[in-house]
């Protein structure tokens, strides 16, 4: 039982390389869906496993056993395993709950602040302009959807590049990408090994919007140039302060530009394999946690005297 329930807890650690592979090979929208579904299911399975450990530990306490109407002692591995596992699980669940609640509060506050900022700025169609010396642009989902762009960003791009930027942000809003980002955030708080998957989901959302923008303006190179120029303008405005540690393989922006310059992605068998590997991880995790939970449930029924031994 214990070994089986460890699978959904350990499997997410093996997923990030597979997630990166899938992101590199699948069409961006497909990658967005596959990665998000994987992250959510893996997070749910690991929560279920932790919850089961806690439940088994609780049923070892005489008071809880009485409450659960156990007439026989619950058959489990040694208490030396069950009790520490339950204690660790309680701790892990508490950490998850606190970090999730804090993140949700912060996100809601940031969203409300951005929304009221957009409401005050001048709006033409769906565009809100914020007068600021820092080049920045983002999609602001809501009713109605808005795109927020600073004056510095508008001035760093030419007319055609601005159209690419607008098309990119509109694609985020039309595609409902904020739901995917929220799901990624949720999963990352449930299991620390899913944080790299959150980064992959964010990149998949950007790539999907980039491709939509390239289709809307009918020019991949123009879209790539708009992204690169906006990023470089942002860097110039911020100065050369050392922020993030230099990544070996290049950050998300160069990857996006490179993908646009490389031309449309042709479907390849390796893409199917990458997706299949990820979905297999999800299936294993689901099967292990379901079997583990079912077995614990059966043992509880035995202990309650409702099922034959």
């Amino acid at each position: 039982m214990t070994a089986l329930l460890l699978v959904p807890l350990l499997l997410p650690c093996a997923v990030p390389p597979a997630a990166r592979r899938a992101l590199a090979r699948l069409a961006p929208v497909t990658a967005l869906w596959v990665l998000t579904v994987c992250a959510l299911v893996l997070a749910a399975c690991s929560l279920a496993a932790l919850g089961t450990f806690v439940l088994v530990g609780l049923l070892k306490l005489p008071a809880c056993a009485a409450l659960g109407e156990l007439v026989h002692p619950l058959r489990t591995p040694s208490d030396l395993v069950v009790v520490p596992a339950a204690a660790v699980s309680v701790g892990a669940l508490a950490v998850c709950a606190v970090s999730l609640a804090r993140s949700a509060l912060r996100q809601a506050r940031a969203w409300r602040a951005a929304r009221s900022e957009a409401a005050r700025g001048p709006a033409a169609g769906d565009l809100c302009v914020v007068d600021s010396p820092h080049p920045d642009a983002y999609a602001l989902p809501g009713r109605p959807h808005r795109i927020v762009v600073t004056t510095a960003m508008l001035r760093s791009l030419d007319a055609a590049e601005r159209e690419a930027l607008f098309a990119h942000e509109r694609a985020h809003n039309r595609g409902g990408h904020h739901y995917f980002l929220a799901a990624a955030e949720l999963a990352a708080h449930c299991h620390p090994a899913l944080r790299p998957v959150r980064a992959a989901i964010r990149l998949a959302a950007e790539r999907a919007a980039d491709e939509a923008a390239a289709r809307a303006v009918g020019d991949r190179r123009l879209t790539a140039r708009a992204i690169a120029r906006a990023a470089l303008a942002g860097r110039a405005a911020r100065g050369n302060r050392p922020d993030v540690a230099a990544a070996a393989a290049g950050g998300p922006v160069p990857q996006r530009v490179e993908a646009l310059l490389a031309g449309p992605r042709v479907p390849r068998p390796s893409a199917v394999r990458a997706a299949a590997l990820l979905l297999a991880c999800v299936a294993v995790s689901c099967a292990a946690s379901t079997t583990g939970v079912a077995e614990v449930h059966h043992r509880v029924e035995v202990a309650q005297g409702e099922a034959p031994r």
Partner: protein
Amino acid sequence: MTDAKDARRPAGELEASVLAVLWAADGPRTPGQVQRGLGAGLARTTVTTILTRLHDKGIVARRRQGRGYAYYPVQDPQGLTARRMHSELARGGDRERVLARFVEQLSPDDERILRELLDPRSGER
């Protein structure tokens, strides 16, 4: 871009593009200048109509220039508050989680890679 393509675009998107031209410019612009700044095949009368609509909404202001008007974006009275909120948001760093940003921060390596990618000698395909 062609007339046909732009004619199909929703009015809101055209308004956004026109307002963007005015904000990107360093002074008031006549409809003719806006039309050229758009770089799209929009008819000048369409641009004038959009500018008039933006003016009616109070998003842009205009002043007489020759026989027509030159338009410029309005700095709203709450602009200062909006700017302050914007910098608060930027400092918090939470926004990049909940909102899809156009570009993330660059590392020095990213900057080098981007410049190489954009270099027309190596970048033309």
